[in-house]
Every structure is written in structure tokens, then in C-alpha cells.
């Protein structure tokens, strides 16, 4: 069996779904950030797979940009989580509920 584009796409779709589920269902803010990373990496797999399929570098360049931006986003995310932890000794997103309608 040869590994073709569809295998990469299925892997990417499965990873993306796992990440999306985790981001919506998990309660620990750090784990939510990790799930977002999974989603972004699922996108990267799809990008690189398509890139190879078309014989273009664009998808790989896109993946590099996504990794860079994801690093910046994670840094800001961790900083905000630390600010929250300092003020209420918890990073449970269920407890971050001062404001609700």
C-alpha cells in the first residue's frame, strides 16, 4: 500500500477533530492551549500533504508561518494564564466565570 494524499488528509481531519473537541470540552486552560496546538498542527499536516501533492513549496512555507504565529500565540496565552493564576490560584476555565449573561 502506498501512502497517498488521502491518508494525510484523513490523519489531518482526525487530529483536527480531536483538537477541536478538546478545546471545547477540556477545563484546564493549559490543556485547551495544547488542543489548539493540535488543531494548528493538523492544519500543518494538510498543508504539507497538499504541498507535496501539487509539487509546490507554498504549503510548506505556509506551515512554517503557522508554526511561528502559533509560538507567539502560545506565549501570549501562557502569559495571560499566569496572570489569571496569580489572581485566583486556578486555571480552570469553568471557574473563570465572573461575567455571564
Amino acid at each position, binding site marked *: 500500500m502506498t501512502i497517498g494524499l488521502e491518508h494525510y488528509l484523513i490523519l*489531518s481531519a482526525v487530529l483536527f477533530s480531536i*483538537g477541536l473537541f478538546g478545546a471545547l470540552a477540556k477545563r484546564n486552560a493549559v490543556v485547551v492551549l495544547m488542543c489548539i496546538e493540535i488543531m494548528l498542527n493538523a492544519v500543518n499536516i494538510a498543508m504539507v500533504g497538499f504541498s507535496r501533492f501539487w509539487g509546490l513549496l507554498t*504549503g510548506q512555507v*505556509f506551515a512554517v508561518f503557522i508554526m511561528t504565529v502559533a509560538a507567539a500565540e502560545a506565549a501570549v496565552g501562557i502569559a495571560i494564564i499566569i496572570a489569571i493564576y496569580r489572581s485566583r490560584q486556578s486555571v480552570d476555565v469553568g471557574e473563570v466565570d465572573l461575567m455571564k*449573561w
Partner: protein
Amino acid sequence: MNFDLLTPELGLCGTALLVILADLVVERKTVLAGLSVVGLLVAIGLTLWLWGQGPATAFGGMLVMDQFALFFKLILCGAAILVILSSVDYVSKFPRFQGEYYGLILFSAVGMMLMAATRELVSIYISLELASISLYILAGFLKDHRSSEAGLKYLLLGAVASAVLLYGMALVFGFSGTTHLDKIAGMVGSLEGLGANPGLLLGIVLMVAGFGFKIASVPFQMWVPDVYEGAPTPITAYLSVASKAAGFAVILRVFITAFGEPAWLSQNWGMLFAILSALSMTVGNVVALAQGNIKRMLGYSSIAQAGYLMVGLAAVGRGPGDFIGQSSILFFLASYALTNLGAFIAVIAISNKVDSDLIDDYSGMARRAPLLALALAFCLISLTGIPPTAGFVAKIYIFYAGIKQDLLWLVITGVINSVISAYYYLRVVRVMYLGAPAAEEGVPSSGALRTALGLCSLGVLVLGIVPGVLIGVAEAVKFLMP
């Protein structure tokens, strides 16, 4: 490489760095606000100069400086100036990091200006993230309970939304083999029907979801009330105006350039936006009725306003080649920017004094601060859409665009919603004018804030009485089509 096309953005980046550095040595912190405003005025000047130069592309077609992009740059720079002027009082209470505050506003302005000017998926993503990450930090800037909660919610939901957007971009790239919008258009144009390429269609729908988050459309609106309530008020104003304008700029560019042809496709995404528009108007207005906090109420109102704006998007999709949908969105965004900023600036001034955002605490404000209350009432009347204000003209124009494309049901929904919205907007006016004042002392405000509020109110009035000039500009503004 024609770097002169990028001078407004480069100038703003330079100003942002300069402001952060100046914060280290300057004692009088108002200088920082002055410096930022000067940088933005220079950027406006350069943008006007580029307007005279005519459309051009840069970096191999990644960026395009056409009138459409320049129009949005003017709106965004203007909004940033008003936000910075209204921040001066607010920021003077910060013990540290005032330079970073102004710097981040400028960086996110650069991101949004690039968003309006990109014609390529990679650069759309990068500029969107440049704008968003700066805003995540600004939303959590106060580091108290509410502000960090707003920052966290905005960051987590924003990151999920941008991951969804990226997955959509990956699919669009994968099934068309290019990231340039004009080349995607060539590929999409040859599609036969809805079932011809399901992967590409899924990509388009996921991109709608990602952009829908930016413009705060239902069902991607759940972050709006919490972030609006918790973030520093000037940043809330900035979010509600600039981030939404940039989101609409990207949506218009992507959907007209890449997915404008064939006709069946644009009919379908036009209908998708029409449904989202009806939902946003209804949910935003109905939930706003129950709000007691004015920032939260304005948050739900901005969801409803996104709904009115999407009437224009639906019109664009239903009638490709007819520019009235696009020009009505441009006019609506300009008048909405002035109106909403005016309302928020008045809220900033009042909450600086009474230290509360509850509508009940605005009781009798007309006697304590007659001019502020008048300006706030005027802006709320404009948001409702009552003449002689900009909001009235904008709503008529955008509903006219809808009727012209046979979207009568949507326009009727919009009109019913305007009536609902009158209740909660005018409730604030009633509380201010008929309620008994809780205290006798007035509400002091700085000259910068009064200038900003005066400019907004004047703009709302002028656009309400003589809208012709701006409508003429909005109708003349065109994309550079490939």
C-alpha cells in the same frame, strides 16, 4: 520592490517602536499619546498620497494598494486616533507600561491595515494574527480579575477560530493549488455545481466561520459580551469598530475576488450571509434588551450591527457585478465607526468618574454632565437609526441594497429589529434625562477626550445631514480586479 506602497504601515511600525522606547525616558506620559497620534496622522497623509497615485500591487501580488484598501486604512487610522485620544485619561491611571499600551494599539492597526490590503491567503493569515494577538494582550491589559478573564476568553476562542479559518484555507489551497485569490478565482470559476468539489466548499464554509468570529456574527459571537465587558473600555471601543471593519474588508476581498464567480456559488454564499445576518440581528437585539451593564449592552448591539452590515454582504453575493452592496457596507462601516466610538468615548468619560458601567448609575447624567449626556444620547439615536444622524442614512442605504437584490424578507427582519433596538438604546437616554442624579458633582474629562467626542458627534451629524459626499466616495471605491 516598491516599498513606497507600504509607507503608511512602515511608518506606523516605526512610531510604535518609538513610543515604546520613549516610554523609558519621557516623564510626561501624555507625550506618548501625542507621538502616536502624530504617527497616525502621517500614515493618513501617506495614504491620501497613495490614493492619488492610483492602484498598484506589491510583493508579487500579495498586497494590493487599491482605493478599497486605502479607504479602509483611512477608517482604521481614524478609529485608532480617536481611541488613543480617548485613552489619555484612562491610561494615566496605569502605573507602568503606558508606552506598550499605545504601541500595541498601533501594531494592531498595522495588522488591520494589511488585512484590508492582502490578496493572498498566507498574508491574510499573518496580518489577521498580527491584529489579533495585539488585541488579546490589550484585552487583558489591566491584569485584574475581569480584564484577564476577558483576555483569556478572547485568546482561547480567537485561537480556535483562527485554527478553523486555517483549516478552511488549507482546503481551499489544496483543492485549487494556489494561495493567490485571483488564481483561486480562475480555478473556482470552472466548477460545475455544488457537488463538483465538496472539499473546496467545506473550505469556504470554514473560512466563513473563521471570519465570522472576527466580525462577531452569530453563531460565533459568544466571546463578544464577556470580552467587551472585561477589556479596558477604550480597547472595547477599538475592538467593536476597527476589528469589525477589518473583518468586513477581508470578507469582501476574499469573497468577491476568489468566489465571486460562478454565479451559483455567489448566490449560495450570499444566502449563507443572509441567514447569518438575520440570526445576528435577532439574537443581538433580543439579548441586549436584558442587559444592565452598558458595555455588555453595546457588545450585543455590535452583534446586531454586524447583522445589519451582513445585509450588504448578502446583497453583494446575490447581485454580483452590482456595486451598491459593497458601497453600502463601506458607508455603513464609516458611519458605524463614528457612532460607536462616540458612544464608547462618552461611556469612558462617565465611567472614569462614577467608576461603574451599570446603566442605572447613569441616572440623571443629563444634569451632571449635559454635553456628555447629549453626545451619548445623539450616538445612541444614531445607532437606532433615527434621523438626522449617520446611522439613519447608513441603514436606509444598506436596506435599499438588500431590497434591490430581492432580499425583502431580510430587510423586513432588519426593520423589525431596529424597532426592538430602539427600546434598549432609548432606555439609556431616558435614564440619563429623566432619572434623579445620584450625586451633584459634574463629570470632568480631559481636552483630548472632549476633542475626540466632539469629532465623533460632529461626524455623525454631518454624515446624517449631507451624506452625499461620502456616498459618492464609497460608490467610486473599486477593487483592483485581476
